[in-house]
C-alpha cells in the first residue's frame, strides 16, 4: 500500500463538558485527498470532534494539526483553507441565495460567481429564493454549496445527507466524489452505512468518545466476515430503495 500524507492529525483529543467527558483521547489521521468518514451512534462525539478541528470549539486537551497549522495558535489560517457544513446552522435572514453566497464570498475573501456555486448543487433555479423557503434537502445542498466558496483544501460535512431523498443522496455522493477528485479532502459523518461504504475511502467508528475501529470499509467488512459472521437472511435482488430510484428517476429534484 502506498504511504499517504496526513493533512489532519488528531492526537489524544479530550473534550469535557463540565464533568461529562464527550471525547476521550481520540487519535487519528486524515490523509490528503481522501473521503474520511466518522461513524457512530448518536452522542458518540462526532460533531464535537469535527467542531474542535474546525476551530469552533475549544478542546480540553490533545493536539490537532490541520495542513501544518495548529488549532491552538493558527485558527485563522485553518479557517481560510477549510469549508464547513455544520449539523445545525442558520443563514442571514431576509437574503436570497445569491446574496448569501456573495456574503460568504466577502467573509472568505473569495472572488466567485454565485450562480456557478449554486449550479454545483443544482440550486440555480432557486437563486432568488430565501433560505427559509427551501425544502430540507435544498437547505442541505445550499449548506454544502457554502463550503465550496473559498475553494478549500478540506471540507467537513456533518450529516450532509440527512433528510435527503434517495436520488438527492446519490447525486450528493457524486458531487462529493467530484470534489474529492478535484483534489479536496473530505471529512464526513453519516448514519447511513451504505453511504459510508460507497463513498468513504476510510472510516472510523466512534463510540462514547473513543475510536473502536478505523480502516477501509472493505477491510472492516472482510474482517467481520472472516470472523464467521453471516447475515441472517438472504437478501433479495433489490430493495425498496431500488424501487424508489426506479420509479422516480435519477435527476435532482427541485
Amino acid at each position, binding site marked *: 500500500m502506498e504511504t499517504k500524507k496526513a493533512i489532519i492529525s488528531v492526537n489524544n483529543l479530550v473534550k469535557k463538558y463540565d464533568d461529562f467527558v464527550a471525547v476521550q483521547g481520540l487519535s487519528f489521521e486524515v490523509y490528503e485527498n481522501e473521503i474520511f468518514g466518522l461513524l457512530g451512534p448518536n452522542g458518540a462525539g462526532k460533531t464535537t470532534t469535527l467542531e474542535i478541528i*474546525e476551530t*469552533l470549539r475549544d478542546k480540553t486537551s490533545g493536539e490537532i494539526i490541520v495542513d501544518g497549522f495548529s488549532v491552538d495558535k493558527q485558527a*485563522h*489560517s485553518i*479557517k*481560510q*483553507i*477549510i469549508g*464547513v457544513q*455544520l449539523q*445545525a*446552522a*442558520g*443563514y*442571514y*435572514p*431576509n*437574503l436570497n441565495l445569491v*446574496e*448569501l453566497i*456573495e*456574503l*460568504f*464570498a*466577502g*467573509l*472568505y*475573501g473569495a472572488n466567485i460567481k454565485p450562480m456557478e456555486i449554486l449550479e454545483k448543487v443544482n440550486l440555480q433555479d432557486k437563486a432568488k429564493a430565501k433560505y427559509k423557503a427551501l425544502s430540507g434537502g435544498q437547505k442541505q445542498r445550499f449548506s454544502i454549496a*457554502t463550503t465550496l466558496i*473559498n475553494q478549500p483544501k478540506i471540507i467537513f460535512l456533518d450529516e450532509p445527507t440527512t433528510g435527503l431523498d434517495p436520488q438527492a443522496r446519490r447525486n450528493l455522493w457524486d458531487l462529493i466524489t467530484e470534489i474529492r477528485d478535484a483534489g479536496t479532502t473530505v471529512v464526513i459523518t453519516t448514519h447511513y452505512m451504505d453511504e459510508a461504504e460507497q463513498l468513504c475511502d476510510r472510516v472510523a467508528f466512534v463510540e462514547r468518545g473513543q475510536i473502536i475501529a478505523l480502516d477501509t470499509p472493505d477491510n472492516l467488512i472482510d474482517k467481520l466476515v472472516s470472523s464467521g459472521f453471516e447475515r441472517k437472511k438472504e437478501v433479495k435482488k433489490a430493495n425498496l430503495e431500488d424501487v424508489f430510484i426506479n420509479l422516480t428517476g435519477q435527476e435532482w429534484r427541485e
Partner: protein
Amino acid sequence: MKKYNNIKATLALAKASFRSIMRSPSAVVFTLAFPLIFILVFGFLGGGGTHIDVGVTPGSDVNNPVMGMLEKTGMIRLIKDKSKADFDKLLEKGNVDAMIDVHRKVNSAAYSVNVVYTSASRDKGGILKSVLNNVFYDKTLKPTVAEIKESTITGREYKTIDFILPGQLGFSLLSTGVFGTAFVFLSLRQTLVIKRFFATPVRRSSIVIGEGIARIGFALIGALFIILIGHFFFGFTLVHGAATVVNMLILATMGIIVFMGFGFIISGIAKNESMVPPISNIVTLPQFLLSGTFFSIEAFPSWLQPISRALPLTYLNDAMRKVAFEGMGLWDVKFQIMILLLWGIGIYAVAVKVFKWE
C-alpha cells in the same frame, strides 16, 4: 496563502445587513413611519400653548395697576429678573412672547406703557395686544394709563415642528439603535448564523463593525428623510440649510452609536426574542417620555427634571434643537456631545462585559 482582507469582509457584512434591514418591516416602521406619523399629527395640530410669557424690561416700574391687571388674567406670565441681553435672545427665539416696560410719565400721575412684540411669536403677541387694549379701555384704569406704545422686533418664527421634529428624530434613532441591534444580535446568535460565520476567517470586530455600519447607514437615511419631509412639507427651520443638515446627521451618528450600545447589552442579557421588547422598553420608554421628545423638560415638575437631565436622549434632543433652530455649530453644543460621549463610554464598558457570541 493569500492575505485575508478584513475590510472586504466587514463591507460584505454591512451590505448583507443593510439589505436585510431594508426588507424588515419592523425596522422601517420604527425608524420612519412612527416619527413621521407624530410629525404629521403635531405638524397639523400646531401649538396649543395657553401661556403668554411677557418679559418685564429691567428698570421698569413693577408696582402699577397695569401689571397687576395683566397678572390677574391668569394667561400672562410675567418674567422678571433677567438681563436685557438674555431677554433679547429669548425674544428673538420666541421663548418670550413680548416685552413690557411701564413708566410713570414725567409730571403726571399717569403711566406710559411700552410693549415690544416679536415676529417669532405673532399669535401670542396678538393675544397680548387685545388684552392690553382691554386694559387701556378699562374704566378703573383709564385715568392712570396715558398711552400704549407698541413695536415689533423680527425674530425667527419658532414653530411646533421645530420642537417636535428633533425630538422625533432622536426617538427614531433611539428605537432603531436599541431594538434593531438587540434583535439582530440575539437572533443571529440563536439561529446559529454567527456560528457559521465563525467557521469563516471573519473577525469578531468585523461582524460588529459591519452590523454597525449598516444600522448607522439605515438610521441616517431615515434621519435625512425625516428632516427633508419636515423642512419641505412642514416648514422645519434649518438655519444654515445644508450645513445644518450635515451637523444634525453628525449628531445623529453619535446618538445612534450610543444607543446601539444599549442594544448590545440587551442582546446579551435577553434569553430569547420575546424578552427583547420588554427590556428594550425599560430603556426607551423613560427616554421617550422624559427626554423632551414631546414637551420641553422645563415643563416637568422639578423633582422629575434631574432624571430627565440624566438621560442621553435629552442631550441629543437638546443639541439637535440648538443646531437646527438656533443655528449653532457642533462646537457650541460640545457640552451635550460630551455627555453623550460619557454615556457612550459607560454603555460600551458594560456591553463588552455582557455581550454574548454563543
